[in-house]
């Protein structure tokens, strides 16, 4: 770095000092680079830690242990044991009766309403189902664990601070006192929340579940896979094995590469304008969602599939031709099976990206509030990531942990898919 003759007094000391400076710069640069990696991985850790910290509590929900007396006076005053009359009975009053018995001092109308608000609306449905399944319960008494309301649940989990003034929290001082009394009697317990995995969406956080969204995601992914996989593999095979070098082939290749870079929301606009408005397909249906996602997924399948096909050595093709195979036989009997692990790896990764996609699905109406669990690809449905978006928008405090838990489930699915891809890739790595 020093110019010869430029500094007559340049001694070894100056050289050594400069060298020390250069080594310091070297260390600084290295530390900066290492910091960048640590920061990136740190972001990942913070992201996961915050989701797990918020979401893990949602898998256990507060339940109220109550003595329920299946009073024949209420359920079956006529004594007919008619299942229809049993199904229409007022089960709410059973729950209320049990609660009022525990707190006989509560009498005022608004006070009683506050007391009843501690139990979820779903308790009555649960009792109804119990009686329908087992009519002999009428007249008996049972100790049952019923779902508490979302506010009671949040308080019991400590998510609602008790220190703030009464007007600023969703539970009153009286309710807190009752809940503390119930907890003291061992009547409040965190139990595994099966309903979260088995029911559809609901406006009540304690009744809301992800099963509807999971099934919606399943149907949507099914349509995506059925459309995108054959089309993607056919395109890759054509471009890699059969296509002549001409204008059309070039146009196709440029298009595929550009489509891979188009923002997904633009595909949503395409779905809205073409599939919904032009062809009049049903809104909110997994069919349309799957079609839009398959267009997004196509380039993500084609590009790795082409790489996998190029990876099959020409000697395989030549050997097959040498034995008299036709071009189709060469490709479908020999090249494609060898490229299949690589193609499947690309497909799984493409599908996992499609599973996390939500923006295009908002455009085609898969964002509606849907309680029913979809039964097919034509039913209105939503998907897991959109469910996350919907819950994240809900004002209730209890939806924060539901959202995080839904994210955990979504991340779980993605992790399984990516692990499968990694395993497949290991097996596909074949030295020729």
């Amino acid at each position, binding site marked *: 770095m020093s110019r010869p003759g430029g500094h007559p007094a340049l001694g070894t000391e100056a050289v050594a000092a400069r060298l020390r400076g250069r080594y310091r710069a070297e260390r600084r*640069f290295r530390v900066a680079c290492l910091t960048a990696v640590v920061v990136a991985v740190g972001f990942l850790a913070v992201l996961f830690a915050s989701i797990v910290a918020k979401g893990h509590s949602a898998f256990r929900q507060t339940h109220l242990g109550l003595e329920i007396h299946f009073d024949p006076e209420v359920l079956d005053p006529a004594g007919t044991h008619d299942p229809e009359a049993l199904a229409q009975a007022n089960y709410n009053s059973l729950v209320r009766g049990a609660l009022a018995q525990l707190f006989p001092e509560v009498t005022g109308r608004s006070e009683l309403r506050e007391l009843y608000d501690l139990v979820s609306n779903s308790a009555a449905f649960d009792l109804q189902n119990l009686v329908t399944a087992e009519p002999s319960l009428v007249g008996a008494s049972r100790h049952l664990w019923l779902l508490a309301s979302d506010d009671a649940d949040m308080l019991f989990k400590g998510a609602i601070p008790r220190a703030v003034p009464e007007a600023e929290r969703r539970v009153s001082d009286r309710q807190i006192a009752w809940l503390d009394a119930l907890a003291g009697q061992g009547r409040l317990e965190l139990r595994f929340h099966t309903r979260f995995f088995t029911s559809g969406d609901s406006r009540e956080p304690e009744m809301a579940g992800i099963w509807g969204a999971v099934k919606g995601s399943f149907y949507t992914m099914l349509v995506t896979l059925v459309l995108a996989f054959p089309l993607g593999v056919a*395109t890759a095979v054509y471009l890699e094995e059969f296509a002549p070098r001409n204008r059309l082939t070039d146009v*196709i290749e440029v298009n595929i590469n550009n489509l891979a870079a188009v923002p997904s929301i633009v595909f949503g606009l395409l779905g809205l*304008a073409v599939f919904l408005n032009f062809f009049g397909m049903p809104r909110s249906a997994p069919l349309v969602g799957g079609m839009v996602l398959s267009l997004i997924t196509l380039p993500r399948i084609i590009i790795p599939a082409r790489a996998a096909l190029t990876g099959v050595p020409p000697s395989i093709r030549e050997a097959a031709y040498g034995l008299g195979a036709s071009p189709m036989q060469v490709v479908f009997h020999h090249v494609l099976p060898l490229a299949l692990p690589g193609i499947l790896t690309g497909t799984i990764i493409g599908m996992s990206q499609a599973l996390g*996609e939500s*923006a295009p699905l908002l455009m085609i109406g898969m964002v509606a509030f849907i309680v029913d669990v979809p039964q097919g690809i034509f039913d209105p449905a939503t998907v897991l990531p959109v469910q*996350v978006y919907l819950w*994240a928008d809900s004002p209730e405090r209890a939806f924060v942990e539901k959202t995080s838990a839904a994210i955990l489930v979504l991340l779980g699915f993605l992790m399984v898919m990516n692990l499968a891809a990694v395993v497949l890739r290991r097996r596909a790595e074949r030295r020729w």
Partner: protein
Amino acid sequence: MNLLPLLTLLLALSAAGYALGRRRAIRLVAHPRQLGSLPGYYGSWILLWCLLPSCLALGAWLALEGTVVDGMVAAGLPPEIQELPAERVGLFLNDAQNLATGNIVSGEVDATLRAAADRYLDLRQRGRWARSILIVLLTLGGAAIGYRLISRRLRAMRRVEAAFKGILLAASTIAIFTTVGIVLSLLFEALRFFQAVPITEFLFGLEWSPQTALRADQVGSSGSFGAVPLFAGTLLISAIAMAVAVPIGLLAAIYLAEYAAARVRTVAKPLVEILAGVPTVVYGFFAALTVAPAVRGFGDRLGLDVSSESALVAGCVMGVMIIPFVSSISDDVITAVPQGLREASYGLGATQSETIRKVVFPAALPGIVGGILLAVSRAIGETMIVVMAAGLSANLTANPLEAVTTVTVQIVTLLVGDLEFDSPKTLSAFALGLVLFAVTLALNVIALKVVRRYREQYE
């Protein structure tokens, strides 16, 4: 017949056709070796004759059925309804359809509506029968033609393989149709929008408030569609994202490619890339519920007034999402720089960081720039993070602590919920989509050009 049984029947008939073709070919000659092709090819020959015409017809039928039935019901409506404006007729038809399928109807059910709904049901029922008969006839007819064409001189293999090749070609043209579909649908709706709002006002107007009047006599909501605040907001958030992603991504790539031991690399590289695999709703949730309150609290302590939907939060979280795009492309490019360049530099006495900064980085620059441009197009098109963490109101500001809105946020807010397809409010989303598509496409093309033109040719 419903769709699923019909498809099953179609497949069963085709399978029978395959068996038939095979048998006929074998019976045609004394020994299968005398055939021009393997017997299976004669089976596939009939299979194709069964499936191709009927599948094409079925696809066309399904695509057009809705429109044709609507038209037929509309033509059969009493004149007093036909004279209504087009959107009222559309509403009426919609109600009739809902009544027919047992959904909730918006207005009162009267006799004309009931009649229209009955007509819907009747037409659909007949349509299903006509469809089934048509498909079965086409399948059987195709099989008959294929069967008659089988002779000793038929070169079944060549024909079947040519047909397969045609199918493969057709599959690969889907990409073209998708692009054409995107361009046409965006252009068509955007042109309708530009009839209501001049394109110059859209591109250069400074005020965005798409609330249009529901009634003509309403005041104060004429709607203005100047998209400059949206473009500015998008650019602001993307710039913040790139300010986070480029340094971290680039330095991380340098560390992984140049410094890290092989074992560290095999662990750290996938870890960084997980950031790209996390769904964007998750980032949006994280930004809105964890980062935004934290930044707001921190700002309060410093005495700054930070909006809870600040551009800073959305941009930073988006930047984290983009880190792996920058780092993995840069990593690839840096690793591709020939080892000889590094060794020559070491031989001249340069330290490792000097080599990286003065030799490797310049050699890798075109690829890195291309990667960054792709990341920018990613940031501009990103939707969920900004929908959940950025604002809705269009502010024209460069202050990252204030709430701004972006093009994608506006598209989502305009198109989610009940839509009327002739108001400029809805159509403006397509104009925004067109701008978004054009910009990301241009960035993509430029990125590829940069990479191609400035790539150093080694060896």
